[in-house]
């Protein structure tokens, strides 16, 4: 597991594997939107009908939601609630935690069902867990040799000042 101060890093290879997996999950679960969020609220990947969605806000609120229910769980002596489900009039949200670190969100309507989503999510979670474990291993190797291949090793004061113009 990553320490609190280490960065999450995403590489092309794992990103492609993740996209392939959530696109498949989208089809097989008949859902509308799927996204993957880091527990700290950063959006990792999204697929489906995302054009009209504010995915950045969704990511932040999802993480806040998981954090709050995780706090509730601790208070009653549970480790965490690994699955959350919110039912709306048209759309529903299924949220699950993968590998303790990443949040999988599935938005679906009456074209699917909770049972189907649950089943497909369960299967996809195992594969996602494997990809995430690979990613964490890569990140750790990267952390042992900090800055070597980092594009940020060469940041200058000018680069930073330019951001605020």
């Amino acid at each position: 597991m990553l320490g609190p101060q280490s960065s999450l890093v995403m590489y092309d290879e794992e990103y492609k594997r993740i996209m392939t997996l959530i696109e498949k999950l989208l089809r097989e679960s008949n859902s509308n939107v799927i996204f993957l969020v880091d527990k700290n609220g950063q959006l990792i990947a999204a697929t489906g009908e995302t054009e009209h969605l504010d995915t950045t806000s969704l990511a932040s609120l999802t993480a806040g939601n998981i954090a709050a229910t995780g706090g509730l769980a601790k208070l009653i002596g549970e480790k965490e609630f690994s699955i959350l489900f919110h039912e709306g009039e048209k759309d529903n949200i299924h949220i699950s935690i993968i590998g303790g670190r990443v949040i999988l969100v599935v938005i679906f309507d009456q074209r699917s069902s909770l049972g189907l989503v649950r089943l497909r999510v369960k299967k996809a979670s195992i594969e996602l867990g494997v990809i995430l474990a690979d990613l964490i291993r890569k990140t750790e190797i990267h952390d042992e040799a900090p800055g070597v291949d980092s594009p940020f090793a060469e940041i200058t004061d000018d680069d930073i000042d330019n951001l605020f113009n």
Partner: protein
Amino acid sequence: MSFINYASREINCKIVYYGPGLCGKTTNLQYIYNKTAQDAKGKMISLATETERTLFFDFLPLALGEIRGFKTRFHLYTVPGQVFYDASRKLILKGVDGVVFVADSQEERLDANIESLENLKDNLEEQGYQLEKLPFIIQYNKRDLPNCTPVEELRKLLNPDGVPDLEACAATGEGIFETLKAVAKQVLIDLKKGS
């Protein structure tokens, strides 16, 4: 904890504005939101009570521009300042890359500032962070008010380690972007070191 995405060439960092209730954290974010170009900001989300006190957090995503071909995004969060929201404050500190402590310069808020700063240290330590090792800026806010404690005195009480600090008036915007820039700079320098 920053998120470096080589696939989409993005880097995301989380900055938390901390401080006692009513010191001006939400006002900081509102000013930044109002003065930022449409294409550089996302929606500002405020989870607040009906009387506009922050209940859980305010959230403002900013896309500042590119560094070395990477889109640089900062996610700004505020915490609820009131003492009884401590559980929520802890949650929001998770994965933080940089902290701004907003102090309320009014004399009668001196104790509240000290208490909140202690609370920040405790809550960070509980999660395995040390404030001394994080990018950290102190902002002395509400300098426009007549009943302000002199800055030298605030500095002595709140900033014994001499971290970068500056005066501000969130109501008019004075010092607000300077604060953001100061913390963002430290976060990026940290990244450069490959923390």
